[in-house]
C-alpha cells in the first residue's frame, strides 16, 4: 500500500483526524491529506521539533515512539516507527487510544509492500479428437 492510500484509509476510518502527513526520518513528505504543501511542511517541522524536544527530556537510551500534545484548540499526535512517522491533528478531546491505534495502522499499512497480482492460470487446451 502506498502512503496516499494509507492516508485515505486513515481519514475514512477515523473521523476525529482533521489532517495527517506521513514523512520519513529525513523530513521528506511521503503523503499528506492537506492540499496546502506549506501547511504540510509546517506540520512535519512541528512534528520533528516535538519528537526532538521530547527526546531531550529523557536521559536514557529509549527513543520517543509516540506523543500527544493536547491543547484547548485541539491535539497534535505523532507516531514514529522504523524510519517513518505520521503526524495528525484532531479537534479537542479526541479518543486518544483510538487515534494512536489508527495512526499505527496507517504507518504499518504504508510500510507494507504491494501485494503481487494474481496470475490467471491459462485455460487448459481442448484435446484434439483422436482420429
Amino acid at each position, binding site marked *: 500500500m502506498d502512503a496516499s492510500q494509507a492516508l485515505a484509509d486513515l481519514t475514512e476510518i477515523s473521523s476525529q483526524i*482533521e*489532517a495527517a502527513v506521513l514523512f520519513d526520518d529525513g523530513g521528506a513528505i511521503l503523503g499528506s491529506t*492537506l492540499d496546502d504543501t506549506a*501547511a504540510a511542511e*509546517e*506540520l512535519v517541522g*512541528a*512534528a520533528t*521539533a*516535538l519528537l526532538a*524536544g*521530547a527526546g531531550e*527530556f*529523557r536521559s*536514557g537510551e*529509549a*527513543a*520517543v*515512539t*509516540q*506523543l*500527544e*500534545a*493536547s*491543547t*484547548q*484548540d*485541539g*491535539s*497534535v499526535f505523532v507516531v514514529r516507527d522504523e524510519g517513518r512517522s505520521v*503526524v495528525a*491533528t484532531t479537534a*479537542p*478531546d479526541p479518543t*486518544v487510544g483510538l487515534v494512536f491505534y489508527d495512526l499505527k495502522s496507517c504507518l504499518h499499512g504504508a510500510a507494507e509492500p504491494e501485494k503481487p497480482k494474481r496470475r490467471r492460470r491459462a485455460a487448459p487446451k481442448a484435446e484434439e479428437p483422436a482420429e
Partner: protein
Amino acid sequence: MRRKVLAAAGFATGMFAGTFLYRRSSGRRRDRVDVYFADGSMVSFVDGSPEAERLLPVARRALAATRP
C-alpha cells in the same frame, strides 16, 4: 422548627455549591504533552512545566497552520 429549616437550607446550598465547584474544576482540561518511549514508559508534561512550555507552543503553531 425555623432553625431546622434554615439548617436544611444551608446544608442544601453548601452541597449544591460544592458539587458545582468540583465539577467546574474537574471539567477544566489542562494543556499537556504525553510522551511515550520505546521501553514502554510514558511521561506527561502539564502546562506550566518547563518541558510543556517548550513543546506546547510548537503544537499550537502546528494546529494553527492546518486550519483555515
